[in-house]
């Protein structure tokens, strides 16, 4: 064993870091082998199904709004399910992934192992952010795909979508709108994930991260609901979370979706920047 090491030493300069693709693959493998990730994804698959069943049972009594628009309009279901989940469940799932990513690893003593391997501290932030993004993407995909299926099979409809504006979209364009909302939701979740990672880099207790994100969401919601604090709206991540309904208008207004995406990018940059700075100095 030692001779092979010597040979390699002379053949090429010693690697000081493992290949990035291998690190990312190991991270995803670890994320997906975590039982709670799998349970969470399974529960997300239930959300569109439950909404679909609820709508069929309540039948035509549903009023207006996004849920009301689903009745007899199956392809609206994934958009409604994503919008509904974005208010609490999806951010919670992402926060959980981010909490495990750094605080959880620290509490298990495995963060030390990664730093000693060594995985560079900056690189580690990148790998961890990737892992959180994978969880967010998978959760959104599960809701979107199961939503399309449940919408078509349980709620039914003509395969076309009647928009909130009263016009009708073909199946292709309707699926395009679902994809647009899915991508937009992933963007919003990336922002939540970055903030959660920043919190995660500050503590060894995953629950602190979860509680902080949950508390933050509630505070943001309350602040957004106070009319006297209207001036605060442009700064709150949550204030643009109703924009997904825009996807059901014709012609498609991109203002709300664009603005909230821009806001999410700001949160993302701040969160990742803070995490990177903090990880440089963190004891492990």
């Amino acid at each position: 064993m030692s001779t092979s090491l010597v040979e390699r030493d002379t053949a090429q300069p010693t690697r000081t870091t493992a290949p990035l693709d291998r690190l990312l693959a190991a991270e995803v493998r670890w994320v997906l082998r975590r039982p709670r990730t799998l349970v969470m994804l399974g529960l997300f698959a239930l959300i569109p199904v439950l909404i679909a069943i609820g709508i069929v049972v309540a039948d035509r009594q549903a009023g207006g709004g996004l849920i009301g628009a689903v009745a007899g309009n199956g392809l609206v279901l994934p958009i409604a399910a994503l919008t509904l989940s974005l208010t609490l469940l999806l951010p919670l799932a992402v926060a959980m992934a981010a909490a495990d990513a750094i605080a959880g690893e620290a509490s298990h003593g495995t963060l030390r192992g990664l730093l000693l391997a060594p995985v560079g501290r900056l690189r580690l932030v990148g790998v961890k952010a990737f892992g959180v993004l994978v969880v967010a993407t998978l959760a959104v995909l599960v809701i979107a795909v199961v939503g399309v299926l449940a919408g078509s099979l349980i709620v039914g409809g003509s395969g076309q979508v009647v928009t909130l504006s009263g016009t009708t979209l073909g199946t292709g364009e309707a699926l395009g709108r679902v994809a647009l909302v899915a991508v937009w939701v992933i963007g919003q979740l990336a922002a939540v994930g970055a903030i959660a990672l920043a919190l995660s880099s500050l503590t060894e207790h995953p629950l602190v991260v979860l509680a902080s994100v949950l508390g933050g969401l509630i505070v943001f919601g309350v602040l957004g609901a106070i009319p006297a604090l209207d001036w605060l709206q442009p700064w709150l991540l949550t204030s643009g979370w109703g924009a997904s309904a825009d996807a059901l208008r014709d012609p498609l207004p991109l203002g709300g979706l664009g603005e909230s995406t821009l806001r999410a990018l700001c949160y993302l940059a701040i969160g990742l920047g803070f995490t990177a700075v903090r990880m440089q100095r963190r004891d492990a």
Partner: protein
Amino acid sequence: MSLSTHATPAAAPTAAGVVPLAAKAVGLRKVYGRTVAVEGIDLEVPTGSVLGMLGPNGSGKTTLIRMLLGLTRPSAGTAELLGAAVPKDVASALPHVGALVEGPGFHPFLSGRENLRRVAAAEPLLTSAEIPGAVGTALERVGLTHAADRRFRGYSLGMKQRLGLAGALLVPRKLVVLDEPTNGLDPAGTRDVRRIIGELHAGGATVIVSSHLLAEVEATCTHVAVLQSGSLVAAGELGSLLDAGTGGLVVATPDVDLALTTLRDVGATAFRDAGDEPAVVVSDGPEAPEIVALLVRAGVAVHEARRRRPRLEELFAQLTEGSS
């Protein structure tokens, strides 16, 4: 603490730059709030040595190790690992360093083998194709093959410790740092650790091992560093440290009374040895050759003269209990 002043020069020939150093600390200091964990430690670990780091609980052993590995930033002072400045260039040294610090850290929901594969994926010196083999070899080396595919959650304390050891041995290392490797291990496990340290030493690797088992350290280490309340109270080669300890000279002779009179006449401190053989112990006085010459000239039959080494345990007690 006269002992440390005796002991430090003993390590000097190896530390003077003739022998390259595997690790070096200069004035390392770490303060947590108002608590001083490590107070200005200078330490040199020669390449190829097995350094036993001793000290009571809370004496700063782990903090010192963590600073050497770049896991914790020192409040003051500098450290070097395999010639690389810590923490600035530590990334170039760490691939050659295996470490088990503050107990084994693994994920409970993964099996031992999967945990190790995850660690191996981050090892720069392993190609992806080598990983399964390296993991298998490391598991075998610590005697954990039979339990490799059980979840870490169900491992006993000793098995967890063995897995941590396997993680440090995934790649042939230049330096292996083991913080309390024998924690929770049964006697067979302790023997395994001793064997592994021996193998590493024979292979030319440097080993830093902190332990409470003084007999283990005495059996495996070439060098020792003794910490007390965050300060280094003694460091150097095990042999010269023990020689410098207050052991004295044992002279085996049937003429005990004549020997005692002769020695006391020249102002030496001597007393009858408590052992089975008739002998005198000279604990203070002239140098050994002088004593022997003196006795022979006085007509004392000297059968044997040997340094009486204190056991490491006695030395450790003198060093750490005397000053507290």
